[in-house]
């Protein structure tokens, strides 16, 4: 990524020097995740997530389609992550074979789709002939590092927020009820994976990193774009609230002590816990906002419980 952003030696040295003094440019602690904001749009499954200066939009859509031949009882689920120069000049239009693009797409795919976060069996309508196809379109709007973390939050928040139209099956014909006619139904979410990315910096030379016993490497949570450009290694951990490791990816880079990596996983769990609660709270609030007239419009009589 970002092959056209030039970072001067002065900046590189200064950022490393401040990391050695336990300082980050934006004043955060090493293990501090940036503030997440989750904003829902008018439709179900339309969410804008910002993580510091990074902005990611995700939109869920659905249609009725033919299931795969070898999986007649399962619906389809597709996550599309396409990078456009909208996210920053370093991304080329229509080129998704860049190293970082592939890694980001693969990690989101593994974290959400492969881990079975969405109940695809619940998407089956008529076995072998009709099923729902759910599509999550991720748009990267602004880039300040942490694309994986932000887009995973966006996809999960959007999936949890989304509601598909209700259906009735009569023999072989299926009636799809418009949203205005019948209350749409939410998707089956089996667990909520959250990605947390750690960046590694080497304050010494690479010989001490390989041969030394000191483990002085610096671990930084949720790097900004500048830190991402300078880091020497990266670890993305995906966890859910049930203390399950869903996916871990440390694709080479600076060798790190196994215990340090375990420590990262435990740190990630705390963040996962917090972010999951935040997503659930945000959805609850949004639903409450949508239903604010429900009490007024209800035709039920208020019954006196004491009577």
């Amino acid at each position: 990524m970002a092959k056209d952003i030039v970072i001067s030696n002065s900046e590189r040295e200064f950022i490393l020097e401040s990391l050695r003094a336990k300082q980050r440019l934006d004043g955060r602690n090493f293990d501090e995740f940036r503030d997440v904001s989750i904003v829902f749009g008018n439709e179900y499954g339309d969410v804008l997530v910002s993580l510091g200066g990074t902005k990611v939009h995700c939109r869920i859509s659905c249609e009725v389609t033919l299931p795969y031949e070898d999986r007649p009882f399962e619906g389809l689920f597709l996550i599309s992550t396409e990078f456009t120069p909208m996210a920053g000049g370093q991304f080329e239009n229509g080129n998704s074979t860049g190293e970082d693009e592939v890694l980001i797409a693969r990690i989101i795919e593994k974290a959400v789709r492969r881990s079975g976060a969405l109940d695809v069996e619940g998407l089956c309508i008529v076995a072998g002939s009709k099923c729902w196809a759910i599509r999550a379109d991720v748009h990267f709007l602004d880039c300040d590092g942490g694309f994986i973390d932000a887009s995973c939050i966006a996809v999960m928040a959007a999936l949890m927020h989304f509601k598909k139209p209700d259906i009735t099956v009569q023999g072989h014909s299926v009636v799809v009820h418009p949203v205005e006619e019948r209350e749409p139904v939410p998707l089956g979410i089996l667990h909520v994976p959250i990605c947390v990315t750690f960046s590694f910096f080497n304050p010494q030379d690479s010989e001490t990193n390989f041969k030394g016993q000191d483990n002085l490497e610096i671990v930084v949570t949720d790097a900004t774009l500048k830190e991402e450009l300078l880091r020497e290694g990266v670890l993305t951990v995906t966890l859910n609230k049930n203390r399950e490791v869903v996916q871990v990816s440390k694709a080479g880079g600076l060798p790190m002590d196994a215990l340090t990596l375990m420590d990262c996983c435990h740190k990630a769990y705390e963040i996962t816990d917090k972010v999951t609660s935040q997503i659930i709270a945000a959805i609850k609030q949004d639903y409450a906002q949508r239903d604010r007239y429900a009490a007024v419009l209800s035709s039920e009589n208020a019954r006196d419980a004491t009577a």
Partner: protein
Amino acid sequence: MSRLEVYSPEGLRLDGRRWNELRRFQASISTHAHSADGSSYLEQGNNKVVTLVRGPGEPASRGQLDGQRATLRVSVNVTKFSKFERSRTSHRNERRVLEIQTSLRRTFEKACLLHLYPRTAIDVELHVLEQDGGVLGAMINGITLALVDAGVAMWDYVAGVSVGLHDQTPLLDCNSLEETAVSTVTLGVVGKTEKLSLMVVEDKIPLDRMENVLAIGIAGAHRIRDLMDQELRKHAKNRIDNLAGKQ
């Protein structure tokens, strides 16, 4: 079809191994002495991987030229006949393969002393002839051997191995049958240390069991490192003996 018994109550696995046993590990180097600067052929269980290293040499294009260090490139060719069923499509340009290439490149970029070879390119070419679980680990071992054969300066060995977790028992070096039944972790361990250059988990594992799994993986990788070391030393001894015989 009954469910496979991955780990029997007697403590035996599908292929008769114990939980902490590696598969057969056989390696040879300089297998393609004429076509490449460094080469290795590796059998880790039923995984068969051929690795060719070309370089450090003149880069193919100016874009690969770096004035500070050598450019390392890794290309992975997963053959169509490498699995039980012949795949119809070529695996080249699959996202999974691209991901593996990137992971391997980034692993060895740190492990090699690339700053010793400025303005050159080192091409690593992997051919997977047969795969049977934990192929990423086998690729790491293959590259390590081939790079040593090519004479590229490295800080230390990088040894790759996969570990599965069945219930509470970690299973070292899983084959493909086990891989379908349990979640696995692939590690790339630096030499005799506990430093991980690569760590990939693709299925769910309880967070509290991870430490256990990593410990077994690291121990297994150290054993693989020793096996590679033995093979290399045997090869070196042959060469030295030959030299001595000629004089």
